[in-house]
């Protein structure tokens, strides 16, 4: 085999491999670039949803103007979830799929969790 044929073979091989893994490579870089930003948004939306749930429960238990006002503030705070949704759409449009986003969410949760109990709490099956 002469030198020219070797180069052509290597070129085709490289192109074939790049084509095969290009999607994975792109996903890897996008995930590395956006993981911190996305993780923060996951946390903020989660926090906003928890606060909103508590505010709703407080209004249900003790309905008054003060608690209704707190609920309105909790609703405004849900704008963080709008940011989270927009980030999801942006990352999907960049070519990430749902599994990639789940992975980023899990990374964020693990960053925020201080011990294994938190991980168990997130992953255990509950029947309620």
């Amino acid at each position: 085999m002469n030198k020219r044929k070797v180069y052509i073979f290597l070129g085709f091989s490289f192109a074939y491999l790049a084509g095969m893994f290009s999607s994975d490579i792109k996903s890897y870089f996008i995930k590395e670039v956006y993981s911190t930003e996305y993780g923060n948004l996951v946390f903020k939306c989660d926090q906003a949803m928890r606060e909103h749930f508590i505010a709703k429960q407080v209004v249900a238990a003790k309905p008054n103007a003060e608690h209704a006002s707190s609920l309105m503030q909790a609703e405004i705070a849900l704008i963080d979830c709008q940011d989270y949704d927009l980030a999801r759409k942006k990352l999907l449009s960049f070519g990430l799929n749902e599994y990639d986003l789940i992975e980023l969410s899990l990374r964020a949760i693990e960053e925020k969790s201080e011990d294994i109990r938190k991980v168990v709490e997130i992953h255990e099956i509950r029947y309620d």
Partner: protein
Amino acid sequence: MKFDTIKPFLCALAVWFVFAYTYEAAYAGLRDNTLIDAGKHFIYSTSLTPIDPNIKKASLGSKLFEDVRLSFNGKMSCALCHIDKFGSSDGLRNSIGIGGEGEGSERLDSDGLVVPRNSLPLWGRGESDFQTFFWDGKVEKEGGKVRSQFGDYAPSNDPLTVAIHLPFVEIREMVNDDYEVKSSLKTESVKSAEKIYDRLLERVKENQEYVSAFDELYFLKLDEIEFIHIADAIKVFIQSKFRLQKTRFEKYVKQESVLSPDEVAGGLIFFGKGKCVSCHSGRHFTDFKYHSIPFVQAGFGKNGFGVDYGRFNVTHDPDDLYKFRTPPLTNVEKTAPYGHSGSALTMEEAVIYHFDPLRLISTENMTPLERSEFYKKLLASSEDSELIPYLDDDEVDTLILFLKTLSYEESSE
């Protein structure tokens, strides 16, 4: 390359730009609309009763406000603790009262007596809906009646007029803490206060310019002038000079101006996850209620030895321990330091004290008494535990950008 070749590409790019712009605009619209609605609901839901202060009375009040003769030793005036460059406060943690010299930090180097509270700014105090005065609300109007240290002998049924009376008879503030005062005037009675008012009134009556002004503006002869007329002139001056003006945020809510995206984001924190508006609501950005924020005590404290019981000093109700009236936020960026004893030097610290005070203090450097007091304040603040938010540092910075939109623009001052 021919144009036909790149035409599809250019068309696709144009469509993408139009889509992106519309998307961004719609999203910005959501944020702006949410913030404008929140501003209308929580802050500007009521309109102000217009006040039209008499300019000549205001001018007389301005002179009295600056006149050092209206203090016991003849060297202290209202203006020395309410200075324009400090947003009508004095720029100090604890004010330096009688005996002090100079402005701001210069007063720390003098022999002035320490007043154990942070000097309050005067913005909006002259508006008709402002009826609760001082950190502990020691002058307030409730049920149509003014409650104050004067008890049933309040000089007026207007809370601002009553509030103006107090610094003139407050020991350390405008009255010396010397032998004469201790032996004859330190009686905690209205009669002692009247003796001081009489002494100050005599000095005013010795000034022909003042006498002529009271004759012209209040139709009073020399023997008819009383201290309440002095207080009234100062009140008109406060109504005139420190009236509420339109802030950038108010202009934004009324759609006369725009805020930057970061300022809008800060506003959404103020009305949303920061829960600031739970207490800082209404035109003055205060609910006029009493809350406990675990600020460390700077200085000796109203109750001495670094203790300040706040509202409890007025009501003697144990539920009021360590509570202070929510401070208004008008021009807040200019009124540092913050808190009842000025322990927060910056707006950032003041915000952080609301939800993460331990970040700002070194408990190991505190005395056991200081730590004990701090624990009690933490416990008192836990009554509002559902109001304590979590904000990261970027959110604190963004919130501060919004707080700066509550200032009057330079041109309108």
